[in-house]
């Protein structure tokens, strides 16, 4: 079934997904949702596959109307969700009747909210993804008044069972807001910092305004490197925490340049990276040291949890006679 969404108020919203992979051999970055956890959760809550396009709203809200009933979910930082003026919960599947006004307002304690809609948003993917990439000149930013196409497998979500919160699938809702605790693992150059390396886990760091999707700049007492040798340019992971000579810390985000030559003191864990995609300039960060295996196990638990959420949603939709749901991968 083909549907049309009319965007009444676009805010700073883009069509987004988890990013493009397998392209770093060409120097192409992954990009994708800054808060990968919330993006995955949103798709899981509406019975979409994890990699399907959704809408990423930054700072500002969003308002739209669809010409058919929608199965949708809003995740990310806390915000007010209204359907035809009635307040609705976030982090939960919702049905918006045909023609109703859907509004997202007042995103707070974090930078971004995510809106997933059951079905496939009609935006061309480039190199396997719809994620915007400013350098390549690709991506779809929403504009006021535009009509966005949506193809859904289902004819109608106006089923008696979906009109009431018959099921609230269990999903772990993170706690958003400053001060943020970011789990990290020691980086390859941690030993170069000697005793001062431990400062990273004792000090508060404040997010500078000149932070973006390439990297966050942090003010605070930076650890001091004892060695003086130059580090040759090498590949750097998303979430890398670098200590350049200037004394500011740099935390690399999903749009980062793929190589760098600054000392790498720590790397944010996968879940930490999602929170780093939510921090607002002025927010305080505290880094919590953990082992590599702890970080790996936490990533696996988090994904297993989301898979269970996706499974629960699929089961519930099937029991309402809405079959053919794709579960997250």
């Amino acid at each position: 079934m083909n549907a049309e969404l009319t965007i009444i108020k676009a805010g700073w919203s883009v069509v987004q997904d988890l990013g493009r992979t397998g392209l770093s051999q060409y120097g192409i970055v992954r990009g994708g949702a800054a808060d990968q956890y919330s993006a995955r959760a949103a798709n899981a809550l509406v019975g979409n596959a994890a990699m399907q396009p959704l809408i990423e709203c930054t700072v500002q809200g969003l308002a739209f109307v669809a010409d058919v009933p929608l199965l949708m979910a809003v995740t990310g930082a806390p915000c007010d969700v209204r359907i035809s003026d009635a307040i609705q919960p976030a982090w939960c599947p919702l049905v918006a009747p045909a023609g109703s006004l859907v509004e997202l307002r007042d995103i707070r304690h974090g930078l971004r909210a995510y809106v997933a809609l059951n079905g496939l948003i009609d935006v061309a993917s480039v190199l396997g993804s719809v994620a915007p990439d400013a350098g390549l000149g690709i991506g779809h930013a929403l504009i006021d008044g535009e009509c966005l196409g949506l193809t859904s497998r289902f004819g109608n979500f106006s089923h008696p069972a979906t009109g009431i919160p018959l099921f609230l699938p269990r999903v772990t809702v993170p706690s958003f807001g400053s001060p943020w605790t970011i789990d990290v693992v020691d980086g390859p150059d941690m030993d170069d910092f000697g005793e001062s390396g431990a400062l990273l886990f004792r000090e508060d760091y404040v997010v500078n305004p000149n932070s973006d999707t390439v990297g966050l700049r942090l003010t605070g007492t930076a650890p001091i490197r004892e060695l003086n040798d130059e580090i040759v340019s090498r590949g750097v992971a998303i979430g890398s925490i670098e200590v350049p000579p200037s004394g500011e810390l740099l935390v690399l985000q999903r749009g980062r340049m793929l190589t760098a030559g600054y000392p790498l003191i720590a790397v944010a864990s996968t879940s930490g990276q999602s929170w780093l995609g939510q921090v607002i300039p002025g927010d305080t960060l505290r880094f919590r040291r953990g082992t590599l295996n702890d970080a790996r196990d936490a990533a696996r638990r988090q994904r297993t949890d989301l898979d269970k959420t996706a499974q629960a949603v699929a089961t519930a939709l099937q029991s309402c006679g809405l079959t053919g749901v794709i579960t997250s991968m």
Partner: protein
Amino acid sequence: MTEVMDEMPVPGGFLRIRACGEAATLVEVLTDDLEMSWREVHGIAVIGDAPGFFGAVATYTSVLIEYDPVIHDFSEVVGMIRSRVAAGRSYEPKPGRRVIVPVVYGGKWGPDLEAVADELELSPDELVRRHHERPLLIRAVVSPAGSPMSEGPDLPAPVQRQNSPRPSVLAGSVALAGRQAITYATSSPGGWRLIGRTPVQLINPYHSPPVIYRPGDLVQYLPIAADRWDEFLNVPVELRD
């Protein structure tokens, strides 16, 4: 092997393998044989194409491999790297491939040409001549997307970087830093010294593959007069083999 590091001997030195968080592993080849190191890391990079992996960033003597931590972990990746190295499967580029990059040198296209020539105690014409007289070997295709980083031309000294990076370098800018050369395939911030600019298109995200040159290919820079800019504007870069 520790939880976060492993080392393995290779001819003339050793390989150091370190975890960079639970979703990436960094391999560095530490030997005097730079050519061998380069072939080794670009050979190891292929692991980045396997299922559950997100790709690899290979430079001169290092490679970073990224993966889904739900599917792979450090000790497993170490095993894959060791197998690959032990099997002697290093990178063997196909020889004789060269990309032709027409360049308008100096002026507004290469605002740092005169200053760099001055620092090297060469005339601007001599610097230009040395830049294009021999094809240069591409060692890596890096950020910004699609940019060929190569061995630099034969110059009396390394080229100093900008004191502070330019917030935006125009796509197509031809640049030098240290002993290396690069062409910025897309616009990005940059700290290299700009000596010219090319009108041709180096990367096309709507094409498969988006970039036609690879490490081991040669870049042949070709001086053109400014009035030929439009003739080459956005024409896909030519590869000859």
